[in-house]
């Protein structure tokens, strides 16, 4: 019952926001002091939303799985709407060209997973801890399982 409602809420969020990952956890410090590792970002990905400088976009480099959260610092948009843009982490000295694919100088709309619209600090730390320390994840599951069992007994 809980699992199916959680799943419904998640799927509902995906539809409402238009993004395949409507909520992401910040994994690196490249956007400090605004975002720190463990913060939570809420994304939307409406196609009609134009990409403009200053926006914080979450993008994936072709061939890589990890989404990157950085700011748009340069855009060149054609009349037909085709746009190429450049990103940079607030806390980085240089732009992201070193992170893109070999020979790639620009990002395109298709690389964008979403635009950061909302922010909640610290809450995502739990997923990072569970990723970095799998023993913690198992311990947590064990405690939750034990709690359910104990509750039933009384």
């Amino acid at each position, binding site marked *: 019952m809980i699992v199916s409602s959680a799943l419904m809420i998640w799927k509902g969020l995906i539809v409402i926001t238009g993004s395949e990952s409507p909520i992401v956890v910040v994994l690196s410090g490249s956007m400090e002091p*605004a975002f720190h590792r463990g913060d939570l970002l809420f994304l939307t990905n409406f196609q009609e939303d134009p990409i403009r*400088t*200053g926006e914080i976009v979450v993008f994936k480099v072709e061939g890589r799985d990890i989404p990157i959260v950085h700011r748009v610092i*340069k855009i*060149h948009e054609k009349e037909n709407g085709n746009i190429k843009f*450049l990103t940079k982490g607030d806390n980085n000295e240089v732009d992201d060209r070193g992170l893109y694919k070999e020979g790639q*100088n620009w990002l395109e709309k298709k690389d964008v997973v979403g635009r950061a619209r*909302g*922010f909640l600090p610290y809450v995502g730390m739990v997923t990072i801890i569970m990723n970095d320390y799998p023993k913690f994840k198992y311990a947590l599951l064990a405690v939750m399982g034990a709690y359910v069992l104990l509750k039933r007994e009384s």
Partner: protein
Amino acid sequence: AGQGGEMNTVLSRANSLFAFSLSVMAALTFGCFITTAFKERSVPVRIAVSRVMLKNVEDFTGPRERSDLGFVTFDVTADLQTIFDWNVKQLFLYLSAEYSTKNNALNQVVLWDKIILRGDSPKLLLKDMKSKYFFFDDGIGLKGNRNVTLTLSWNVVPNAGILPLVTGSGHVSVPFPDTYETAKSY
């Protein structure tokens, strides 16, 4: 049976305490967000440009094509005091140039940026600033461009809540020269 009873009490008290603290924190966070969500976050800004120069070189920042490279020296005055409140962690300021060329209907280039944390001086009084980032065009669209507009904008980063982009009221239009500067330095 007695010991089992105590353990249960401790656990259930810990559970209630945890749930209560979580609810209080969530309520405070939501309060932070909702009390500032609809606030006006724009202030007047004064931008002036004292010097403009244009070169045409190979874009060494990435695409290896000969492109227009602009140099702008500017002044910026703004008082951002009223934007800061209990739910503003920092402002990410950026000065951007917006213009149109034959090659691209819309171009935007961030020339300069600055982070102002809550507690830092919110009054901006910059004179004779050179751009932080290279102002390369995607082509040769800066030459003779009469309408390059500079605006100052900021991303409001809250303690919790929405991340709006706000543009200050006040901009300046910069006409770029028709010829390239051949002298070595700027």
